[in-house]
């Protein structure tokens, strides 16, 4: 039964577990769009799915701008590779996302040579960032490698020492 108030005054909305707060409903929507959670009740699925795909495309573009060689190394496969990796995985910032993707691709032996070189250069010059934080440059001499690519950093200058092996 709907509670009624004085004449002409709308009844206050019932609160409690049956009526989720705006905060809870917003959280459920973000989880559905960015973290692979099921669509919240009442939403039309098609436009929500279109919005999720648009979000993934936007993320792919942002990560490609931060990791241009990784994206170039994957060429026309970039949107699909990134989309498969990012689906259901909320963003930790475009730079960190690209870094994590490069490491995951390296782990399964699918990092293209250009991406390996970019990863080696970044690992030599920067600390692996916390989620949502920009990478901080390393001050002490350091080196990074990815596959056969090796990069060194000395006095803030990063050089690729050995390029990644290209498949014949």
């Amino acid at each position, binding site marked *: 039964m709907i509670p009624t108030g004085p004449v002409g005054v709308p009844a206050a*909305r019932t609160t409690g577990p049956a009526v989720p*707060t*705006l*905060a*809870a*409903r*917003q*959280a*459920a*929507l*973000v*989880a559905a*769009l*960015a*973290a692979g959670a099921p669509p919240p*009740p*009442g*939403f*039309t699925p098609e*436009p*929500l799915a*279109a*919005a999720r*795909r*648009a*979000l993934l495309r*936007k*993320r792919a*573009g*942002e990560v490609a*701008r931060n990791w241009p060689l990784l994206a170039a190394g994957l060429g026309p496969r970039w949107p699909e590779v990134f989309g498969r990796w990012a689906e259901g995985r*909320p*963003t930790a910032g475009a730079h960190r996302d690209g870094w994590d993707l490069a490491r995951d691709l390296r782990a399964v032996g699918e990092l293209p040579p250009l991406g390996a070189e970019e990863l080696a250069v970044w690992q030599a010059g920067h600390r692996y960032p916390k989620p*949502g934080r920009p990478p901080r440059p390393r001050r002490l001499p350091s080196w990074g490698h990815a596959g056969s690519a090796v990069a060194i950093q000395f006095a803030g200058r990063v050089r690729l020492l050995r390029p990644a092996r290209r498949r014949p």
Partner: protein
Amino acid sequence: MTGPIGVGIGWRPEIAGFVAELPGLRFVEVIAESVPTAGPLPAGLPDLRERGVAVVPHGVRLSLGGAEPVDPARVAHLAAVAVLTDATLVSEHIAFVRAGGLEAGHLLPLPRSREAVTAVCTNVARAQAELPVPIALEPIAALFDWPDDELDEAAFLTEILDRTGAHLLLDVANVYANARNRGTDPLDLLDRLPLERVAYAHVAGGAERDGYYHDTHTDPVPRGALDLVGELCARRRPPALLLERDGNYPPAAVLRAELDTLAAVSGFPVVT
């Protein structure tokens, strides 16, 4: 109104050189989150300021429509950018971008409910208390609606503007996109919005994909959106119009032509 005047363009580092060469330019917009508050303004902006080109800091990550209180550090950043750029106006969206500890990575629509009106008005008031200049609020483009809207778009926006006293940043491309995707009449919305509160308007390009029109900012401005600019100006011309372009920057001649078309449609002086 002490906001921007004429035709302007979204200032981005990638097109800073192009923007610097526009002789008649009176105003630009910068993404507030991309301006560091420690250290000097990004290269190119100080020269524009010296030329008397007004800068409007435009926030994209405040999440004014979030049910949670707006982050004071983000408000402080927007306020600091307003001071650094000597701005007379800032702008942000009627949207939320994070909830429950997760970033959406995009502007998301609010339910058009009284509860959401209160949430956004409370956050706008929190921001206004810290900002040194007035704020203009921008309605967004969205592919979906919430299931429990109590108000239509015009009533929702008018109530927020009335309760906050904020100006309206009317994105004509968003109006165009929403009308196309929902099958609503964009002219009806223009007829019912408080156009006297428009501080400036946005115009951007988009593209059709998956059966939806997406406000991408990476495509040319479609004829339909330009026609809508004409309809807006015929009702009440906004003080200023801004072309937004983010990524996939075309050759300078194409961007110039787009700015010229905007000036022609609105009757503002050409800036190229």
